[in-house]
Structure formats: C-alpha cells, structure tokens
C-alpha cells in the first residue's frame, strides 16, 4: 500500500472500522448526542453516531438541529476538544503520608505512576489536532515534560474527520489550522453522501486500513471531497488578522474596549474551560480528616478565577477588565513569543459557550481599532 493513498469506506463499513479498533483493545470514543450537544462517549456501533444531525452555533448559543440523514459527522464540534483526553481536568499527582520511622516522624511522598488506557477517538477535527499538537509542545517539549500528558498522548489513537461544513463560529481557515486535517492523526476520514474517504497518517493507521482491505477511492470522489472542504473554509465569516502580533496587543494595554468587554464578561471561566489549548492548572491539597495522608490533585485553572493573579496581599488582576485582557493578550499575543504560534486554533468554542455571547474575534478586532 502506498503512503497517502485514499481509500473508500462504505457507510455500512464504519462498523468494521469500529470493531477493528475495539478488538485491538482501544476504548473507542466518538461524539455522541447528549445534553443538547455532542460529547465524547464510548461507541460500539456506528448507529450511535448523530446521524441526520447538525448544529447551529452563534455567540452564546449552541443548538442541535435536523440535518442531512445520510451524514453522521455534520456536527462540527461540541464543548469538548481532545484536551480532556490528554490533559485531564483533574489528575492525582501524588500522595503524601505522615509515617514514623524508629520513633522519628516523617513525611513520605508517593508519586502517582503515569499510566493511561488505550483510547481511540473517532471524529477529531483539524482544529483539535492543531490544539493537541500545541499542548504537546507546551507540556512535553520544554525543559520539563509532563509524564501524565505523555502517557495519555502515547496511548491515544486518533481518527480525524475533515470538516465538510463550518459552524458560524468557526475561523480555523484564518488560523491556518483547518478545516482539513493535515497531520497528527492515525486515520483521517471525509464524509460524502454515499461513502467515506479514508487515509492513514501513521503506521498503525496503515495497518488498520490494510486489515479492512478497502478499494482505492475514485478521482471524482476525491475531487468532490476537496471541493467541499474548500467550500467549508470559504464559508467562514470570522477571521483573525494576525499582522502586528504580539506587539499590537501589548501596545493595546490601555484600550477602552477592555472596559467595554468587562461590562459584559461574567468571569465565569467557560471560555478557558472549552479552549483546547488553555493549559493553566493549579494543584489542590486534599488532606484526610485524620491528617495522616494528603493527596495532591492537579486541576484546570483559569485566568478568569480571582486567585489566578494573587500574590500575598495583592491581586495582579483584580477585576474582569484585567482578566479578559490577560486572556486575549496571552492567547493571541504573548503565546506567539512563548510557543512560536498563536494560542488560538479558531475552533470558536469560546464564542459559542460564552453565556453572554462575547465574541473573541469581534473583541479582538475592536481592540485593534484606534480608540
């Protein structure tokens, strides 16, 4: 089999792919309709996918709607990215115990050994892959590597799905992260009316395709898929103009728009929780009632929480104005200095899941205008 070959998988063949993953010991997850959206959940049959569903996303608004009955991947995304699978929201780091040794009291540390189950995830989008690559860079490619992320990433198999439609909140095209998955997947699929196109991006992906022994896709279908993906990109209404970053945001420190947005923002942290690249975390100490043991848990933190900028007696970011400014200046600006690329992948989740409908793209364009 030639690398980069695109194969054709009948819609009815999706169950064979799922079976193959499950038989290889992967706990297999896919976007399943739940709570008015789609969430990662265990899948055993392709029938559980959201067939005939699509979503409408607007600032502060997410609704599942009736869509094309032949499609099971038309819901672009839900609130979860891949973040929750690799950089989990709460991770136990260690136990600490008070123990006596020959009458001398001691505290002993028992680090948790990073272990991860094999997970296959079906339906990751190009923006999610870009975000995962960014988190991998942050958490494992600096001076210190996070062993928990590494263990979970190494155990993750990704079946990406190229986007055939964009939500109104999507702007991956302007961030150069989508809507087509270019790298970082084991398999990538494109959903047409009659069938899927599927290609491998890794050895394990190639092995799975070989096992399924699929026919090579026809040129006409490959061209139709490419055209649909290009149309999805072209349909995006939002865009971030990155020229002049990061300096332009450092220079916009006193822009009146920060006051304006602070008047609407609730500092609820939703944007940072759904953001696929946000990596802030805090360690929580959970002592037992008899004080014999204390467990240390790492949890996601947010620059919108009041404690985030706190140092004894002083809060560096006392009000929402400073917190929103921190979030945007870091995400779109300082991130470039720190990690050589924007912290935004254009998934639009922070826009849809903001309870008051604050639109990052719109706020950014206002901050870039002369006051």
């Amino acid at each position: 089999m030639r690398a980069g070959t695109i194969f054709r998988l009948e819609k009815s063949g999706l169950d064979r792919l799922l079976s193959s993953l499950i038989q290889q010991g992967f706990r297999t997850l896919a976007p399943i309709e739940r709570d008015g959206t789609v969430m990662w959940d265990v899948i055993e049959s392709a029938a559980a996918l959201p067939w005939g569903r699509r979503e409408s996303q607007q600032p502060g608004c997410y609704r599942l709607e009736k869509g094309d009955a032949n499609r099971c991947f038309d819901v672009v995304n839900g609130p979860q990215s891949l973040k929750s699978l690799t950089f989990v929201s709460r991770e136990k780091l260690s136990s600490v115990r008070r123990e006596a040794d020959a009458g001398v009291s001691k505290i002993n540390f028992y680090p948790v050994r990073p272990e991860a189950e094999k997970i296959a995830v079906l339906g990751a989008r190009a923006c999610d892959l870009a975000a995962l690559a960014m988190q991998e860079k942050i958490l494992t490619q600096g001076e210190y590597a996070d062993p928990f992320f590494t263990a979970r990433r190494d155990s993750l198999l990704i079946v990406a799905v190229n986007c055939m439609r964009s939500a109104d909140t999507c702007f991956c095209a302007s961030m150069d992260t989508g809507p087509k998955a270019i790298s970082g997947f084991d398999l990538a699929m494109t959903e047409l009316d009659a069938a899927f196109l599927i290609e491998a991006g890794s050895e394990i992906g190639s092995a799975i395709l070989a096992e399924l022994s699929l026919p090579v896709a026809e040129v006409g279908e490959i061209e139709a898929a490419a055209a649909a993906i290009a149309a999805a990109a072209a349909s995006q209404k939002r865009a971030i103009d990155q020229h002049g970053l990061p300096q332009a945001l450092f220079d916009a420190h006193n822009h009146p728009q920060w006051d304006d947005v602070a008047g609407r923002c609730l500092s609820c942290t939703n944007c940072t929780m759904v953001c696929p690249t946000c990596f802030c975390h805090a360690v929580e100490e959970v002592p037992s009632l008899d004080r014999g043991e204390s467990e240390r848990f790492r949890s996601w933190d947010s620059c919108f929480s009041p404690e985030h900028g706190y140092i004894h007696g002083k809060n560096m970011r006392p009000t929402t104005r400073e917190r929103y400014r921190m979030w945007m200046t870091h995400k779109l600006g300082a991130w470039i200095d720190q990690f050589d690329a924007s912290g935004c992948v254009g998934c639009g989740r922070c826009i849809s899941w903001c309870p008051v409908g604050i639109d990052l793209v719109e706020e950014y364009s206002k901050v870039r205008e002369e006051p």
Partner: protein
Amino acid sequence: MSSEACPYPADVMRSNQIHPARIIEKREETPDIHTYRLQFEEKEIADCFAFAGGQFNMLYIFGVGEVPISIVSDPENAHILDHTIRVVGRVTEVIGRMDVGDVMGVRGPFGKGWPLEEAKSKDVLVVTGGLGCAPVVGAIEYMFRRREQYGHIRIMHGVKTPRDLLYRERFDQWRKEPNTEVLLASDQPEKTWRYHTGVITELFDIVEMDPTNTICMMCGPEIMMKLAARRLTQRGLPDNALYLSMERNMQCGIGLCGHCQIGPYFSCRDGPVMRYDLIAPFLARDV
C-alpha cells in the same frame, strides 16, 4: 559530590517530585520573619542538590500546599539550605509555627538568579525597598564572602517609616565592609532618623557612580523598581546592566501552570530575576 554524579536527571529533580527536608535551625530575623536551615532527609538528594544565587525552591507543607521561597544561603555550600520566610499567607502562617525537627518538602531549585558572575570586577549597586528584600540578601552576602572579586558595593534601601526597617544589624554590619557604602532613606522619618529623608530615587543624585562599570540589582515594590530603573537609566546606566527581582503568583516553578506571566515571560522560569531591558514595558502591569 559534583552534579555529574547525581543519579537523577535535572527534570526529575525539579519537576513534580517533592523531597522531604528537616528544619535543623530556626533563626529569628524579626518577630514575624525567620530564617530556616533545611537538610534533605534523603542523602542522595542532599549530595546532588545544587543551586545558583537567587534561585528559589517550592517549599511544601503537609496538607497545606506550596510556596516559592528564595534560597539565601551560599550556592557553593549547597548542603546548607537557608530560606528566610515572612508570615504573610496561608502556607507561611503554618511555616511560622514550625520549629527545629519539623519536616517540610522541597521541590527545586527553580528560576534564574542574580548576575553574580557578570558583576565580578564591576561596581555593584543594590537597590531595595519596602519590607521584603530577602531575595537579595543572599546575593549581598555572597559578594561579601568574595569581597576582593567585586568593585565598590553600594547598598541603598528605602522604607516608608523607620519602623519598616528590617535587618538593621545587617545594614550596620555591611557598612563596615571595605569599599562599601550603605545608604538608607525614609520618606516619613522620626526625629531620631540619622539617614536621608525622602524617597530612594533621591539617593541616586547624591552619589557618584560610574554607570559604564556598574551592575545594579533591585528588589522591592514594583512601582519603586520602575521609577528607580527609569532614573538610573537616565543617569546613564545601560538598561541591560539592571536586574530586577519580580514577584508573581508562582505555583509550579517550571513555566507550565500559567499563573506567573509577565508579558511574554513566565517569571518562575525566565525570572524571578529579570533584566530591565527585557521587562521594562511590562513593569507594574498585569499582562
């Protein structure tokens, strides 16, 4: 033992692993500031622990949490680990109640310290202000222990009222060192105040200095450092010869938890001692 013999790679030594250490001495500096001398419980850790002047450790208190504290003892004597701690918050409150024989945890060392090598054979100006200047005390004592390697040393310290003057005996002791000057300023002095009345930046105008051969180290309230740095650069001190100790919410020590950002920097990893030309646009700002 040299660091090459350390059986642990640096990232293992410094990342998530906390090592127990016992308090072997507790010395009172003021009623709410004490210096704690720690000794690692594990011999192999004690043997391979090494740090640079101005680096900090995360000190862990069982059941409470961690706090970043500068190491003030001499880096060439790394088995002695001194931390000067003022009771200011939840964790330091508990440390204040600890005594010799009690055990805490140590994770570190982290961050970039003072330019003690670069300052060799140059004049050194130390500018401190306010209540807590412990991070620079270690650097001052490092230089005095190697007095012949440094040029003229001038220590300037500003306080609001004389009651805020900590380490009074240390200032008196430093004053006796050769080729050394100690200048104190208070802007709300009492009648017995023998030193300068006014703010610290006024001291720059009453001394002669060679701005082309001086390294300045600063520690204190950020707004004081901002004004002092501006005044010193106006007097001809190059902006890359000035180093500031920056204080932010440092929780992980390894640039990963996101809390301690200053502009494009993580102060735990790129600081806490940062060069003025890099940090100037972000001083006394929240982003």
